[in-house]
């Protein structure tokens, strides 16, 4: 940190910006605790004590993470007064490193959406053009970073919820390999693809925050131990010889000509640097989207079944217990959340589960096998983040199928549990860089290279 500005002043400046912002990015401000923490950092600096890389750095948290004593609403009516009893592992690691949480950030309710319009706090407005959506579901987090209201923010990515809003707001957003960062304390949407990840303005910031949050956690048994990624290790791109891209993503009727042309121009620039580029076959977009939504709906129906107003949440009393459950859930879930819960219960029910759910699992295995085969031929897969530029606020709510299909380029990598980074270059909504499982370092390495090349 630059000693010319005190931590307290920096934090106060950011809090003022968040307070006065008109992009609907804030669900709640953590003003008092942030200023207390900032004072402690200033005292350490005054005493000449050493401070860490993240010490005193103000950050934002998508409002689906537990942080003890703060409201964690998931942008929903059901949990609008719910207070976190404990702190998520990933957030605790950032607190331990000295970072200062400023804000719980607006998002699609329970992560259900791709535009951050499905929220009780008002639609998040895009950082570049406020008539457009902020993207989702981590829309508030991406806009806060883009507008410099936070230095970095922690989003959550189940099917693209970090990468797509990062692309829509011209910032970096990273979904690490599934299991690299603990999900303990993240409100579960679809547990088999839920990932914690940073949104920031540079690959260096992404690296630092990723390192701080990574590691095995006994509270999330899907986590795995990982090595620290050093600054030096991601500077040398010599190990990347071959890059691939999916033919059907680019030859699709759904992609805008602007994004297609800029993506192909990027491919030419990569070839000009002596890297071999291979064209790969992949599943059709409608298969990817349908497989992802089928499995995600099944998992969210199960995960959200606990939200019945019994132990916590906005209970609405009915005539008896069952009536209380159903009134509470009918009145407090949004239309989009209800659509996903009902869809999930429908596909898991007798007569449907073999035909839809088990078949969806089989398709997921095929998709994962395809990736495994591809990564024997290429080091990195490059793709656009979205087929089109962000829609106007209001459009996605009118056409949910179009919203689901807009996730065509992000959901496949979620199903494969692969590390994927959005870099705000190469197309109007950025590029996705994907590596094989646990190759997060390689992804950051290629991102540095692209950042210098484009």
């Amino acid at each position, binding site marked *: 940190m630059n000693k010319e500005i005190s931590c307290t002043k920096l934090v106060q400046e950011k809090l003022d910006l968040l307070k006065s912002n008109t992009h609907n990015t804030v669900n709640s401000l953590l003003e008092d605790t942030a200023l207390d923490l900032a004072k402690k950092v200033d005292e350490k600096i005054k005493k000449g004590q050493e401070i860490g890389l993240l010490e005193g750095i103000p950050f934002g948290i998508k409002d689906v993470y537990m942080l003890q004593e703060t409201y964690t609403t998931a942008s929903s009516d059901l949990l609008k007064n719910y*207070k976190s009893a404990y702190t998520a592992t990933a957030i605790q690691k950032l607190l331990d490193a000295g970072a200062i949480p400023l804000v719980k950030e607006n998002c699609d309710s329970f992560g259900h959406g791709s535009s951050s319009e499905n929220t009780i706090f008002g639609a998040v407005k895009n950082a570049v053009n406020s008539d457009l959506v902020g993207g989702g579901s981590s829309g508030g987090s991406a806009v806060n970073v883009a507008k410099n209201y936070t230095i970095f923010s922690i989003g959550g990515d189940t099917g693209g919820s970090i990468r797509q809003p990062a692309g829509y707001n011209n910032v970096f957003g990273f979904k690490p390999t599934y299991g690299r960062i603990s999900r303990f304390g993240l409100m579960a949407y679809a547990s088999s693809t839920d990932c914690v990840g940073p949104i920031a303005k540079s690959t260096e910031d992404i690296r630092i925050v990723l390192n701080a949050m990574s590691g095995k956690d006994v509270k999330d*048994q899907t986590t795995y131990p990982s090595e620290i990624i050093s600054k030096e290790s991601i500077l040398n791109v010599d190990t990347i010889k071959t890059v691939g891209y999916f033919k059907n993503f680019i030859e699709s009727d759904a992609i805008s000509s602007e994004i297609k042309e800029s993506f192909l121009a990027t491919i030419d620039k990569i070839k000009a640097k002596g890297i071999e580029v291979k064209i790969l076959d992949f599943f059709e977009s409608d298969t990817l989207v349908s497989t992802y939504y089928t499995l995600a709906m099944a998992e969210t129906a199960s995960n959200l079944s606990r939200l019945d107003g019994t132990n916590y949440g906005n209970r609405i009393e009915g005539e008896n217990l069952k009536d209380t459950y159903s009134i509470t859930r009918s009145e407090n879930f949004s239309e989009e959340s209800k659509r996903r819960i009902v869809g999930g219960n429908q596909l898991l029910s007798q007569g449907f589960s073999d035909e839809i759910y088990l078949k969806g699992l089989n398709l997921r295995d095929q998709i994962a096998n395809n990736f495994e085969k591809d990564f024997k031929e290429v080091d990195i897969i490059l793709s656009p983040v979205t087929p089109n530029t962000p829609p106007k606020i209001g459009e996605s709510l009118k056409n949910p199928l179009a919203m689901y299909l807009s996730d065509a380029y992000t959901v496949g990598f979620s199903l494969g549990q692969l590390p994927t980074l959005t870099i705000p270059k190469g197309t109007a909504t950025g590029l996705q860089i994907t590596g094989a499982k646990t190759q997060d370092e390689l992804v950051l390495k290629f991102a540095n290279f692209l950042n210098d090349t484009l």
Partner: protein
Amino acid sequence: MSKMMTVDILSSIKGAKESETVNQLFKVIINADTNSNAANNVVNAVSIDDLREDIVINSSKREKEIIIENFPKEKNGYLVVAKVIEE
């Protein structure tokens, strides 16, 4: 019990109905080709050699207090719920 349960009962959501949009997604899955040779690549199961210790860890006093603060209806520190046995 052979009674067919409807989606509103399964979901505990009053008046819930199937969505045409969601059914369109399901149709794609129903019509897709499955491959019996697809190896199971997505494994989230935990190895039995890697289970955490089977011990009870007590929550902190503050954590317990917040859990009680979150009760929708509370009486003398206890959670109030509707009568459970009713049918």
